[in-house]
């Protein structure tokens, strides 16, 4: 199994967690991204993830490898959903196990932060009023292009 996966099916969290169990680890940190019923004041009914898999898998594995190297954690995995999701579904899960907790927290946060800005994944929200809309990464819009080597503003 790969450290980073895309899944069109509901994520099996128990199986995910078991992959990270390690007797030499005292700390496990998990982040779940849940489908939220609102966004910027609008009522969300469901959403859809479009994923460009070849690159998402490559870039996702790279992020995991960076986190392991940078924080020295024992193990790290993530799964991101594609397709249609309902409220409270798990859109993404990141798990990190490590002998101590500090680096597990840091690595988990690094992975989800990077995943949100580097993976070729797009989210379309369906609203209660019948509208639908592609959602921008809020932080990207606010902060401009902080994606290091992989991003650039389209020049005017």
């Amino acid at each position, binding site marked *: 199994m790969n450290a980073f996966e895309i899944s069109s099916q509901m994520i099996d969290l128990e199986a995910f967690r078991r992959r990270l169990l390690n007797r030499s680890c005292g700390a496990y940190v998990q982040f779940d991204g849940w489908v939220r019923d609102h966004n910027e004041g609008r009522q969300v009914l469901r959403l859809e993830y479009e994923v460009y898999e070849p690159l998402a898998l490559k870039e996702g594995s790279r992020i995991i490898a960076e986190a392991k190297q940078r924080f020295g954690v024992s193990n790290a995995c993530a799964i991101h959903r594609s397709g249609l999701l309902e409220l409270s579904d798990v859109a993404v899960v990141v798990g990190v196990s490590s002998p101590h907790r500090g680096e597990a927290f840091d690595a988990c946060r690094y992975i989800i932060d990077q995943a949100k800005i580097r993976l070729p994944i797009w989210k379309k929200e369906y609203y209660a009023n019948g509208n639908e809309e592609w959602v921008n990464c809020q932080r990207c*819009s606010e902060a401009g292009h902080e994606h290091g080597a992989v991003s650039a503003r389209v020049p005017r």
Partner: protein
Amino acid sequence: MKICVRFFAAFREITGVETEVVETTAASPAGLFEECTRRYAGLQNYSSSMVAINDEMAQWDSMLSEGDEVLFFPPVAGG
């Protein structure tokens, strides 16, 4: 030279095109995207858009070569 262009998510919906092969003199993805905005009304210079060439993330000023596949990504929103 011939370049294969792919549009994703919002870009695909704006252009109505998923994949097209274009004949271009653009030297970089930036120039190529500029050509596209002239062809497709509504295609805009999103900040934080990204570009990939042959399934590798690339720079807007990377060099294009004959037969490259250029992927235009609107701002991403994973998680």
